[in-house]
């Protein structure tokens, strides 16, 4: 039995590897989208203009309050029916990236609020513009305090990426590969455990990276 367990991996290694690769691609692209859009929206939410604040708030409420699976349906069958020739991969990373961005924005916003208001006032009075104040003074400090909550979001995003493959996008990601192999070989438990091992590799690496960032940049207490 233990040998059969290993056989499931060795006999289907190429397939598992392709699935792992797809999941890595999904996660990396979604991460870039989530971090950049999330930071931008957080800046909107703490901006002095009430209109920017409103746009930021609307974004967060819209993307945080709609289930990811529904976003996928809007982004793929929905857009395609509206005449947009979007590919399954792009629809997938947009859904996951923009969804995660709403949470990232909230985390960063709370980080910005942890930097005292006096610093913004001081910076503005020294002649920095608002974007400069954000980029040079507030955000670097804010990021320090939000490394840990951001880390949790990244790990959640890695796991959420499994929803993309199981959905109508029909992407052959890691979990999907496990399911295809399970349905073909009937080695259901080994196939899913190997898929789980793949996710553990990714979340484990993410955890290590976060821990390093924390020890490097964390506020000394």
């Amino acid at each position, binding site marked *: 039995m233990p040998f059969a367990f290993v056989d499931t991996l060795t006999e289907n290694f190429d397939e598992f590897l392709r699935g792992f690769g797809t999941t890595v691609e999904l996660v990396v692209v979604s991460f870039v989208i989530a971090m950049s859009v999330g930071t931008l929206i957080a800046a909107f939410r703490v901006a002095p203009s009430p209109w920017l604040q409103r746009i930021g708030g609307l974004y967060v409420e819209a993307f945080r309050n709609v289930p990811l699976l529904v976003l996928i349906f809007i982004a793929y069958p929905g857009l395609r029916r509206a005449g947009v020739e979007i590919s399954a991969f792009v629809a997938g990373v947009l859904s996951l990236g923009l969804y995660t961005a709403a949470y990232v924005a909230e985390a960063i916003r709370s980080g910005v609020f942890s930097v005292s208001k006096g610093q913004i006032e001081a910076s503005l009075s020294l002649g920095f513009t608002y974007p400069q104040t954000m980029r040079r003074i507030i955000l670097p400090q804010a990021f320090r305090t939000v490394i840990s909550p951001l880390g949790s979001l990244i790990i959640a995003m890695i796991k959420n990426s499994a929803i993309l493959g199981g959905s*109508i996008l029909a992407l052959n990601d890691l979990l999907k590969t496990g399911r295809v192999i399970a*349905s073909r070989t*009937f080695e259901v438990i080994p196939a899913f455990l190997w898929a789980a091992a793949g996710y553990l590799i990714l979340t484990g690496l993410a955890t290590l990276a976060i821990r390093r960032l924390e020890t490097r940049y964390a506020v000394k207490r």
Partner: protein
Amino acid sequence: MKTTRWLAVLALVLGLVLAGCGDDEDSGSGGGGGGESTPAAEVEKFDAGTPLGDIQEKGEIVIGVKYDVPPFGFNNPSSGKVEGFDVDLGQAVADKLGVKPKFIEAISDNRIPFLEDGTADLILSTMTINEERVGQIEFSDPYYIAKGRILVKEDNSEITGVDTLGGKNVCTALGSTYEATLKKQAPDAKLKLVDSYSECLESLQNGSVDAISTDDVILTGMIIQDDTLKLVGDELSQEPYGAGIKKGNTELKEFVDGVFTEYKDDGRYDKTYEKWVGQYTDTEAEAPTISVDEAVELVKQNAG
């Protein structure tokens, strides 16, 4: 101020409790099916401790069916119950046992695990009998033989059969026999595997796949819903459907075979066929007479 807040909490709790009750009622009634159930006149009693005796003691048999594959198993929005060819057969098995059928949804890749872990007693979900599955579960004798076909949009002139699928996106269900059949017969086709045929239909309609390949009856069900689709090419496979039963439970297998034989002999099969398939396809019922072993041989030729 304080009172209003408490009232709001109370309303929320009441709402949740009431919602909970509603769920219970739903799961209790289960499926039902529109089949003409024969009155349970002569019900044979089975000994306690045997698989059939256990089901009789429980008073219900849990049957896994498709919820989205008309005309075999689908949720009828007007009655709120699951109906179809498979559901009628399940009802017949339950009637013969003198128990109530409880229909649960079984998708292509969870139905065999459902049998193994005891979630379902019987699977009637357009399941093709093939060699790999015969190693995993018991099958009843075939109760229906479907033919594999290809469905495309009416304005598609590029795809005319299985040999023109190269480079095209083709949708089929994860865990179905078409995964293997298509890999053999159309190795250059790009397979899109999804959980359910309704997702395949959506993908074909919105243009993200070029074709769907699966059983003719399922594809006919799609054409009934959307008449801008058409079947193309010759049949690429024969798919004998059998009821799935947990490995080693030969008692239930023989019982189900008995029910199916009776169903075919007393004319109920023809009626059920006409109701779910015949009236849409203008074909006569042809009850299969082959055994499980012959069905396995038939399916082997598909890959050829």
